[in-house]
């Protein structure tokens, strides 16, 4: 006889909890059929879904430039990149589905504004240099956030991240390569690059989330192995890696406090404007309403197509049954 959750004898939950804790502590993977605490499941659904939504909404700021990419090679690179993002969204929704939630439900949560996505995509992309800077800084920050998640405790999420990180690092290189080419180009192009760096630098630092002191869920997520490093640690790492790249590119990062600290062996840097961050997260950013509205419009406009596919599949299945 199999024991269901309802019939579990007293103490069974404690035993399963102990088993779960031991697995996480030993860096073993939790798989979809394994028992997991409800809080762990909920936190993961939220985290993976937000990540998936970020990939999908993240298609928009760069997707806006596919039509006007200034060379066919750049058009091909950008089209492929935006397509990859749709693919990342798909892997991540699939990972979320292993936790017992439907992709359609997650889509509803996104377009009704009940679930968030990365605030970075609420900033506009104003020139073609933004395509390069998004690749370099935004994908760069995403990689810093995501590489540790390849070791996250939930198996399907960790495996999705391995694949996604490989593609993200390719995108980041393409972004940096575009910027290098532009910096070797005309004065106007160099000005475009610097302007884009000025606009995206602080939002990129905010991608790591609020300071550790203001991040109440961090401790639990670290214990569960859903999070591997703290927000501030990742932010520091990103700054340390990015400064030499900016030097090599010949752009100035817009932070007067940015300086090498011999003692700590790290860069000191200024504080992002956390009020702006809160505004953008809570929906008052430059493009929040537009991003969600566009996703909602595509979804609603496509309803009849999805219904047709379902109806066709049903008919087809029925006719096969009759034939059999």
């Amino acid at each position, binding site marked *: 006889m199999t024991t269901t959750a309802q019939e579990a004898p007293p103490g069974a939950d404690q035993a399963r909890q102990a088993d779960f804790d031991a697995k996480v502590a030993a860096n073993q993977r939790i798989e979809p059929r394994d028992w997991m605490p409800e809080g762990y499941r909920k936190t993961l659904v939220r985290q993976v879904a937000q990540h998936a939504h970020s990939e999908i909404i993240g*298609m*928009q700021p760069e*997707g806006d430039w*596919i*039509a*006007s*990419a*200034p*060379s*066919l*090679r750049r058009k*091909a690179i950008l*089209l*492929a990149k*935006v*397509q990859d993002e*749709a693919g990342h*969204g*798909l892997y991540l*929704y699939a990972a979320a589905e292993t936790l017992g939630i439907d992709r359609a439900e997650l889509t509803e949560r996104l377009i009704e504004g009940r679930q968030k996505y990365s605030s970075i995509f609420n900033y506009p992309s104003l020139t*073609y240099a933004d395509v390069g800077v998004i690749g*370099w800084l935004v994908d*760069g920050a995403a*990689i*810093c956030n995501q*590489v540790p998640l390849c070791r996250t405790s939930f198996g399907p999420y960790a495996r999705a991240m391995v694949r996604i*990180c490989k593609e993200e*690092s*390719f995108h*980041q*290189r*393409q972004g*940096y*390569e575009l910027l290098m*080419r*532009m910096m*070797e180009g*005309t004065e*106007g*192009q160099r000005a475009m690059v610097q302007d884009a760096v000025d606009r995206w630098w602080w939002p990129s630092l905010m991608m790591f989330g609020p300071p550790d002191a203001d991040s109440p869920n961090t401790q639990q997520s670290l214990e569960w192995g859903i999070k591997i490093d703290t927000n501030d640690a990742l932010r520091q790492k990103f700054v340390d890696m990015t400064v*030499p*790249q900016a*030097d090599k590119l010949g752009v100035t990062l817009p932070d007067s406090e940015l300086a090498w600290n011999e003692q700590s062996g790290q860069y000191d840097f200024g504080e992002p404007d956390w009020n702006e961050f809160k505004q953008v997260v809570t929906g008052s950013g430059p493009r929040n309403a537009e991003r969600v509205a*566009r996703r909602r419009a*595509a*979804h609603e*406009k*496509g*309803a*009849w*197509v*999805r*219904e*047709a*596919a*379902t*109806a*066709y*599949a049903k*008919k087809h299945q029925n006719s096969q049954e009759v034939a059999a």
Partner: protein
Amino acid sequence: MSGDNIFTGLAEEHDGDARWAFGTGFTEALAGVDTTLPEGVDGEELARYCQMLGDDALVQAQRLSQWVTDAPELEEEVALANIALDLLGQARLLLARAGQADGTGRDEDDFAYRRDAAQFRNVRLTAAPRGDFARAITTLLVLSGWRLSLMSRLRESRDPVLAAIAAKAVNELAYHREYAVSWALRLGDGTEYSHERMAEAVAHVWPATGELFATHPVEARMAELGVGVDPATVAGEVHDVLAQVLTTATLGEPGPFPEPAVAGRKGDHGPELAPLLEEMQQVAREHPEASW
């Protein structure tokens, strides 16, 4: 370079292209193919023929990529972007061949960004306004079937470059057509509403199909020389496929194709092409001295 060090590798010194995961040499797609002109072929005429096929692909790719972030389902975002990307790849090779054949040395971007609408040689249907998903599928069904028939024959071209491009294109187009067929069936034989939309789309697209089988003098000469394909010769095959698909999709047997008449191939376009190109060319033209 792996794991946590992926990011740091960016600023390291490397020889040549080694910095980039797959190199940056995307421009030499025709490397290794014999590029000498086949005997008896006029380079300028071959270039004009390449522009026709190249412009078809470029303009269709530009139109299709408008579906990115606007498709009914994520899988469709991926598929339509993929199809646009394939066509863009075909366009780049064909336009590069045009610049090689006519001796001007113009590259793919010279053709794409520095010509106006009247100099484009695509058939009109490739530029047709996007419309709804049923129109997109119907247009794709017609164009992919037509291009697949052309490219299948072009594999035998006496121009080794065209033959190589066609060999690659055939595999891509077979998938494009398969994708369009799968949706034509689902929409035609799905709900009552989707059936109506699909029937409307076929009725809308059909009048534009005549042009696909009209033979421009350049196409006629290229066909005579064994370099190109006379589009009139593929009409029967394309019609058979469409008839089979539309009938299975419960949309009924289509009528014959309308009378063929050359239009886009001689630069005679509808009003939709100019704004499409304007959007495509705007950044490149704003920065004429720039390199990207």
